[in-house]
């Protein structure tokens, strides 16, 4: 496994999430969890683009598939590796954002968090207006309403991911 893939595996471990890529939901959770970890200050070096389901990075997909295959083959070699203490703490700081047993609900929640952060970070929406953010998300066929966005904005602020 390349060092980059080890890094990805360590962050997912820190977030308590398995590296799974079997379904679209699995892949969406992987994408958005990595995005949010980076937004929280864990530098994995992935660059995300805007797609229909929010921020997406093809390298995360590629690395995720490699890790999943190695896990399946039993050749995964991240044992003995650890995330540096400061980054581990930052990742732990968003644990409750990714804490949800229902995978579908988790995927939807993470999509909303990551999308809002991307739109604000990339200045695609001016200010933190829930209505404006909702309008952009609607353009991409999302059924999030202004209350969902308002709640997510609050959680992102509480976790210091947006200010």
């Amino acid at each position, binding site marked *: 496994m*390349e*060092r*980059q893939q*080890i*890094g990805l595996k*360590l*962050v997912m471990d820190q977030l308590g999430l398995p590296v799974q*890529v*079997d*379904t*679209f939901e699995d*892949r*969406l959770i992987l994408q958005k969890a990595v995005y949010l970890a980076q937004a929280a200050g*864990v*530098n*994995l*070096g992935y*660059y995300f*683009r*805007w*797609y*229909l*389901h929010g921020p*997406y990075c*093809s390298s995360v*997909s*590629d690395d995720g*598939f*490699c890790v999943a*295959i190695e896990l*399946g*083959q039993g*050749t995964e070699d991240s044992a*003995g*590796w*650890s*995330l*540096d203490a*400061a*980054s581990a703490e930052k990742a732990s700081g968003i644990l409750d954002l990714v804490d949800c047993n229902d995978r579908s609900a988790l995927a939807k929640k993470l999509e909303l968090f990551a999308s809002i952060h*991307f*739109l604000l970070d*990339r*200045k*695609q*929406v001016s200010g933190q207006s829930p209505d404006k953010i909702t309008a*952009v998300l609607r*353009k*991409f066929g999302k059924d999030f309403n202004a209350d969902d966005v308002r709640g997510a904005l609050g959680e992102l602020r509480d976790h210091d991911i947006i200010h």
Partner: protein
Amino acid sequence: MTSSIEGVSRKLIVDSLHGDVHLDEREWRILDTVSFQRLRRIKQLQMGQVTYPNATHTRFAHCLGTLAIMARILRVLKEDGGISLNEKKRENLRMAALLHDIGHYPYSHLMEGIDHVDLTEEIVGGVGSKSFDATRSRYPDHEEVGKAIVTGQRDILDAIGSPDRAREVADLFTRSEAADLQLSKLLHSSLDMDRLDYLQRDSRATGVPYGDIDMNYLLNSLRISGTSMVGVVEKALPAAEQFLLARFFMHKAVYFHKTTYGIEEACRQLLRRMRDAGSFGMPKDGDEVLSLVRSAELSSFTDDYVDRLVRRASKDGNEVMQALASCIERRRPPKLLYEVQVFENAEHQTINRGKVFFSRAKRSLKALAEKYGIPLGQFLLCCTKPLKLEKRGASLTVEQARGLESEEEDELIKVFIGDEPEPKSLVEIEHSLIHVCAAHLWQAFRLYVVYEGKNKEDVVKRLRKEVGEWAECV
């Protein structure tokens, strides 16, 4: 030269691949900036010229070519009636095509990727801690660097006209554009103009014919669906398949050529060592890269920037750095000791021969290095990126490909079958070659040595024999 098309006065540049490339006044101003002219001093094919002497074409020519293709795509889709763009959006798309590679590092992807380079000592183990450091910002990809240049360099801002407009253009090529789905899809469809240009340009420059594609037919066959999906009509299926095959063979024959790849790997490892040493003037992290490209130093951030570092390492570096630098400077490519190529169906998820070789090399290399008295860092244990016919292809089973959601589908080439209103991905079309081969990937696992000591021929011969023996007996 000045010409006139559609009644608008335009500048004209003749490109060896596309013929006449017409630029409007603003595009001409962009071209004329110091920031853009920098691309004349960055080779498109990194160190490809060590193998193919004529492969000295630059990012500058490629950017012009990409603009030429964008102009043709806009014309075809306008005639087809599937797209309606106002003048400002058309201009933005053209500028995004022209500027999409303005952020390339010296030697293109070579320097950009050093955060992903694992040194031989690290691969073999026993050196350094097993702590993954995610506190340091990574070198940004070239599109992010491009955004920093387009929105941060005065000459480009002046040429574009306003900071807001500059940001709109940068948002397009970094795909941050959330305001217009149609524009985004057009720029990033899998039949992207970037690949359409570089495959042919690289093919002509190297003299390797496999990159030649039926571009005219592909471009004239483009259509756009009601949901803004870009695809080609069914008649162009063979041309689309050949486009993907061209990419596949160009990687095998040119981009991953054993000699080029070996010398590039030596350079990657050298740059990584120099960056880690902190005393050679390499940007220590991504933040320093962004500071550099926003400063007046940008114009010197060209291939020569790396050449100077290599020269410095050959004098001031440690033993391994000097050996790596010398092999680059004097064109003494690392000697390939052993290679395993695999072409496998990824669905089977077997532990292939390449992985077995890699694992054996990790266990045995240290002893081999000690036996021959060659520093471990002069052995380069590396593997190419897995090469797939379709971008997402080999990561997925055909069934998974059918279940892809839109962002993953965006990366697949699509074909309009019959009168169907929406195109299908090539992977899904059962009578296509890509459907059959999509799950396959090719990868090369290689071990090189950088050695210019006594009895070179004999030492390399003996190393090959030993590595061959322990590689074959696994």
